[in-house]
């Protein structure tokens, strides 16, 4: 075990971990926005919107994230979309996780008791008011767990952008393994940082979940 090597490379990994965090935050934000839009579309009374929402979710959940990233980054220029690796990573990961998050959001909304909406409508709330004041506050609690699980998956998924040469944790690990031939040490440092982030997110989700638990 070459601890000196681990200490030496640590600063580089810290910098790379920051890129992983940036990717996670930006892609997570995009994912949430996509999820809200897709869930709203799928629950909309307008049939074409429902169809559009369902297609987005089905396509992005039915194909590998890696391929989605490759279509965007390598295929994009062919159809006039030129993104640098980081931007492609954010957009690709965001669209992918958005489809999974959409199911969490939709699931939470539909599992709020129907009687709640009926009661709100019968005392004169509009559809929008019912959604905003009655359904969403209750659904929000039910979204914490699925959205949290998706966020953990997203942090792990950010490693995929190493394949389009974004200098994040996995890419940095790959480069150092190539130059030092010490995969266990290098992997140890990268793994440590991933685990700090992943168990950090999981812990926050746990706390939120308990804080806002219905019982």
């Amino acid at each position, binding site marked *: 075990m070459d601890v000196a090597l681990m200490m030496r490379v640590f600063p580089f990994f810290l910098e790379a971990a920051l890129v992983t965090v940036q990717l996670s935050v930006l892609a997570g934000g995009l994912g949430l926005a996509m999820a809200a839009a897709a869930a709203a579309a799928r629950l909309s009374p307008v049939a074409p919107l429902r169809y559009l929402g369902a297609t987005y979710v089905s396509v992005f959940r039915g194909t590998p994230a890696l391929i989605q990233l490759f279509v965007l980054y390598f295929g994009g220029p062919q*159809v006039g979309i030129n993104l640098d690796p980081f931007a492609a990573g954010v957009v690709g990961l965001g669209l992918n996780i958005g489809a999974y998050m959409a199911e969490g959001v939709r699931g939470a909304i539909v599992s709020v008791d129907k009687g709640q909406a009926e009661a709100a409508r019968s005392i004169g709330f509009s559809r929008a008011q019912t959604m905003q004041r009655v359904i969403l506050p209750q659904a929000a609690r039910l979204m914490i767990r699925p959205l949290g699980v998706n966020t953990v998956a997203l942090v792990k998924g950010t490693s995929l952008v190493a394949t389009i040469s974004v200098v994040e944790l996995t890419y940095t690990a790959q480069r150092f393994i190539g130059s030092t031939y010490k*995969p266990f040490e290098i992997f140890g440092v990268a793994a440590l940082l991933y685990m700090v982030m992943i168990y950090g997110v999981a812990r926050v989700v746990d706390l939120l979940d308990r804080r806002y638990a219905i019982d």
Partner: protein
Amino acid sequence: MQGLDFSVVLPYADILWIGVWWTVVLTVSAAVISFFVGILFALVVLYAPAIVAYPVRLFIWLFMGTPLLLQLFLIYFGLVQIGIDIPALVAGIVGLGLHFAVYNADIFRAGIAAVDPGQAEAARSIGFSRFQTFRYVVIPQAVRSTTPPVGSNMIALLKESSIVSVIGIAELVHAAQLAISETFRPFEFYITAALLYYLLNLVLEAALRRIEARVEMSR
């Protein structure tokens, strides 16, 4: 911007077909490993003495907290460091298998733990052995609650098998990359690969629905 022309894909149908075949082989072999190792890990965590259970729990914890891509690098490039040189295909299958075994183990563990202890007590009290209790009372009930989540893991496994392309296994993504290196048509080939994954996914989902229906019927 070049025009899109999907007819470039046709001459490479054979290569893509071989890629599909290897994707299926990878997914099925890794699924089998993830299933049996998952059960083994769950049993160890639940019933084995601490000295055995603790390392397994540590392993599960480590594998859950790190990305598959990094795990593949560790297995493929890391084992060489300690003198174990395994072919990419084996590394891919083992890596994918262990990655999902850890998630399956968690599901199996929870599924077994969720069976009411009264059930086992009742079985023991009418004279079932420990093994019989497990085989005829606990497992059938645990199987029902674990089938759907293990099924979604298998769907995830099919998609994540794409990641082993990075260590050079000739599966679907790799086949697409090969064709792209000759034609310089990434859009058409990656879209085709995505479509093939989508179809594989539909087939797998249909199969899982049938399995779930059977498990449900055996109630």
